[in-house]
């Protein structure tokens, strides 16, 4: 990887954009609109992460299969999330309910 294509100024500019994004993600929640908070908080986190990965970690000029490796990891996490969501994310399902939420179960021994 050569340095010529990535001059000094480039990095500082990216850093500046990242800081602007940081400020937006802080201001967003102040408006107290839940949807907007989600977008500014998590959408901007994704943008920031991609920018750091692409420009600071030089993934923009890295071989393609590094992307594949990293994305495989994220896909594994999505699979995990999907598989767990019906059990962990909800209070009840088919023929079961979380009885701590409804205080309907026997007292715990601890």
């Amino acid at each position: 990887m050569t340095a010529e294509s990535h001059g000094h100024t480039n990095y500082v500019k990216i850093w500046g954009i990242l800081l602007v994004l940081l400020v937006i993600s802080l201001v967003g929640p102040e408006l107290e609109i839940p949807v907007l908070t989600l977008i500014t908080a998590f959408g901007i986190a994704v943008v920031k992460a991609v920018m750091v990965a692409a420009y600071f970690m030089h993934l923009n000029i890295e071989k393609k299969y590094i992307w594949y490796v990293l994305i495989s990891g994220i896909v594994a996490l999505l699979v995990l999330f999907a598989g767990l969501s019906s059990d962990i994310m909800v209070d009840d399902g088919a023929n079961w309910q979380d009885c701590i939420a409804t205080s309907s179960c026997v007292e715990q021994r601890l």
Partner: protein
Amino acid sequence: MGNTVNAHVDAHAHDHHEQDFWSKYVFSTDHKMIGFQYLFTGLFMAAVGGYMAYVFRMQLAFPGESVPGFGTVTPGNYNALITNHGTIMIFWVAMPMLIAAFGNFLIPLMIGCDDMVFPRLNRLSYQIFLLSTIILLAGFFVPGGAFGGAWTSYPPLSARGEYNLTPLGAPIWLVAVALEIVAFLLGGINFVTTVMNSRAPGMKMMDIPIVIWMIIIAVVLFMFSVGPLVAGAVMLLFDQVLGTSFFVPSGGGDPVLFQHLFWFFGHPEVYVILLPEMGIVAEIITVFSRKKLFGYKLIVYTTFTIGVLSMIVWAHHQFIAGIDPRMASVFSFTTILISIPIAVTFFAYIATLYGGSIEFKTPMLWAIGMIAVFLVGGVTGIYLGASGLDIYFHENTFVVAHFHYTMFPIVILGGFAGIYYWYPKMFGRMMNETLGKIHFWGTIIPFNFIFMPLFALGIGGQHRRIYNYMNFPDLASPEFQDLRVLATTATVIMLLFQIPFVINLFRSMKHGEKAGNNPWKANTLEWVAPSPPPHGNFPEGMPEVYRGPYEYSVPGREKDYWPQNVPN
């Protein structure tokens, strides 16, 4: 990365003069020596795990009586024994033998380079592994005894000393497992990088021997599935030692979460172990039937498919564990689906035999035996993958019999196949064929008499992890007890038949027939090196590769093999 990790150790790896004992055998950075370290640690732990099996099988056959070589088995002992038998056999036998030992020994030799890319990282990996071994065994000698909450270590039982009554044993067990995982992560990064970057000139992707492909796919699978469990282990450790409540419902946690994290790793783990072993068998059946592997590319692609599918089947271990029952149908479908690529691979192996010139040397016996026995394990998996039938068979000895019919051929039969096959390369001498055959028949016949009775008992309704079935009136019948005694007797016989192997292993190092570079007339690069390979592996120059690894009996050639490094 690796170069910075333990930069302070000053090892003279390239010195060709006599090295002292410590730098040659203990702190070596040579991939072959590290492979041996893993191999012998694995064999030692296999003996420990076998001893545990002997003790608890004796307890089941003769409940309450003093077991020779152990004493009376209390319920706590029994639980600790089955827990650690499972943990040891998976994490301290299967992983170090099949992946770390064979991986370390074979990868640089088979891809034609002189060592792993990060030799010192490799050594660190073994040292962490050894530390984890010592910690695990130390668990038996702390007050309260070793952890007995089954190898799955489901919380809240594992999370609270008040529940499991082994307040020290449980965290020790968990730390040992976590360290072992870290060791294999470090080793795995090394393996993948080596194979990706350091292949011999001319070795294209589709010239890599199947065993290397399988080890690498297994390692990648391991890396992607183990992460959540590492996080889960940290959380469980905090539950145990700090008293947080990640997995304890009374504190707001969720025990099912841990089950998911465990099996998200735990199921791919089965394939992490299976794949390297399938690779070993592929090498052996091609060499001893003098045949090209049937459908090399097909097998590589199927292996990828197995890897991907194995990530989406984990909840079949939890059908009745309190997960939402609607999810069970999804996971039942994917589970039965995974039988398809596995079937492809095994069909391809069987097809490889067609038209061969098969010589039944000891390694080939183990390999054929492995396929024959594994098929039983494979088909019984369908019973358990079918969610409706799993309602009955879950936590039943049918499951125990099933996974021993998969794990045993994978780890023991496949492992021995590999040892008998590569022994000449490892130590420069041949093993004794007669002792090897006695060992084979003395292992595989009693094995069936251990676990066939467990299928029968499982169908009869016997559940797992019970130290004395006399407490259950429906299970206390004399017919059932006879089956338990049969299984125990077979266990003892099988363990006794390991003695010929131990004799063979150590005797042949000194007295075996000299092997020469290529005793089996095989094609892959490790047989180009001298036996045993010196440091640097290829003293006559690093090999170059001109063709795939399975060009046996090519028409028009005088010899029936065509090594990868021979230009024409």
